[in-house]
């Protein structure tokens, strides 16, 4: 391997004076300042800026429609086309959950129910959103395609109790999801 000797570039007198460079710097910073005020900052449009710089001002403007498909927001339970609860309370998500945010109380499905052969459904399904780290492992581990990470990210509450999503809330966030594998349906 040949040795490449890199020499420091020699500065000419103007560069040694340093003042020219400072003025160049002033021009650059002032250009940015003026562009920010005129909403002409580079990339302002793509970033949906608020009209100053490239900043989007949060509560008024939101990035929601630009969230990617794979965005991991709040975990939620889903129902399918037949309005069946997908969750069979196998508790795999509860056991895999790294911060132990999920708590499931399983219950049996009574024999007169049309879905009696599914045997179990959650009586209570609680996710503590203070603990949740949005890792998506629950979604990954679920054998029933019942739990999904949705795009909700602004989960707020004034008490700890409010931050625990119960079953009702989880289904409310999750809603109905179509196009899932319906393995419990009768074979035609």
């Amino acid at each position, binding site marked *: 391997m040949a040795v490449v000797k890199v020499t420091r570039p020699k500065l000419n007198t103007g560069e040694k004076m340093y003042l020219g460079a400072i003025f160049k*710097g002033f021009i*650059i910073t002032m250009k*940015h*300042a003026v562009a*920010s005020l005129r909403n002409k900052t580079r990339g*302002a449009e793509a970033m949906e800026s608020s009209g*100053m*710089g490239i*900043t989007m001002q949060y509560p008024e403007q939101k990035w929601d429609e630009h969230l990617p498909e794979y965005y991991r927001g709040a975990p939620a339970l889903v129902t399918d086309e037949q309005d069946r609860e997908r969750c069979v309370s196998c508790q795999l998500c509860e056991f895999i959950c790294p911060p132990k945010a999920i708590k499931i109380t399983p219950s049996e499905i009574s024999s007169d129910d049309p879905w009696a052969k599914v045997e179990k459904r959650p009586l209570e399904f609680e996710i503590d959103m203070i603990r949740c780290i949005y890792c998506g492992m629950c979604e990954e581990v679920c054998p029933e395609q019942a739990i999904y990470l949705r795009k909700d990210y602004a989960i707020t509450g004034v008490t700890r109790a409010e931050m625990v999503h119960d079953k009702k809330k989880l289904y409310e966030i999750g809603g109905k999801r179509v196009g899932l594998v319906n393995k419990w349906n009768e074979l035609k």
Partner: protein
Amino acid sequence: MDLVITLLIILAKVIGLTFLVVLPLVPISVYFERRFSAIIQDRVGPNRVGIPLTLFGAKKDFSFFGLVQPMADGLKLFLKEDFTPSHVRKAFYWLAPALVVVPALVTVCVVPFGSDIIVNGTAHKLVIADLDVGPLFVFAISSLSVYGITLAGWSSNSKFPFIGGVRSTAQMISYEIALGLSVVPVLLYFGDLNLSNIVEQQAANGWLLLPLWGNSVPWNNGGDYTAWLFWIPAVIAFVIFTTSVFAETNRMPFDLPECETELVGGYHTEYSSMKFAMFFMGEYAAMVIGSSLVVTLFLGGWSLGFGLDAKISALSIGGFGIGGLIHMAVFMTKVVAFILFFILVRWTVPRFRYDQLMRLGWVIFFEAALINVFLAALVIAAPQFGAISTIGGLALLAVVTGALVWVLKVSEKKSVPVSI
């Protein structure tokens, strides 16, 4: 009775000019600093904090571009825990913040804020103490603030503050010389050390950096080009003086005493709450005073220029001369503009390395200021000297300058890098 009235007038001046003019400038410059740096960096900056009118039943909150932000910051600093570490030397630790703020505020007293205000036929100068040694007084007092910084660094009894304090001392000593020497040409030119008189001269005869009216233009004073020729040493003095003021106030290109990247917070690492706020306030007050000094000496102080000042001074409403107030507004505008320049410099110029800082102070500015003194003297004396002596003097000065530059170049032999 007269004594009481005189004392009352002095008290009014002290309270009015210090607490109603200079101190409010501190939070305002903090606000400008944050907003200006934000737009330079393509951000928005603090624009939310306002008066929460919705709490009182109004329809919308009042947030005037976030102008209340500094007040919120101040309130936060008031309410924070004032923590004194157990390892500090308490007496000096508590004394240091005051020693930073007080000199900065004391120097306010010689700054002329405006021309005279006329009440009942008597003129009152808009300056707290009309000293005949203005600039000297400012240098004497403002260099005391380094004691606060050094004491803070030492009494904190911890490594980073100590390094910060020592750096500050060295920096202050280095730049004090350039500061003092660079202002000598200005004082030579005006022949006066009273800042009010300096400003009045500038108002009548053109600013030092803008000699375009009054006696300084050749067709008004019988073909004397002194004022225009003096522009060259004035600009050199201006550059050196401004840069030294940056160094004196520990502002960005020279903020080595408190550089966050190396020294955590420098001399105020161990401080919290209002004690920290005092350092903060002292720094910004020094910035306000520094820029008002630059404006006073070089940019015409309170004068609006172009021969308008006499007309403004003559303005009055019912025997009450308001010219002084208009001049004060002009002065404030100039000071704020210069503070904005301070901020622009902070967010443009990267920090110097410590040896570069020392080199700039001792090797470049010191010599340049010294040569500038002689250049200014030559320009001022040229009409008496006549052409031949002046050119001879200039040649001598050029030779001396060349010799100095040569000595500096030779003395700075760089070691040849070892080739591998």
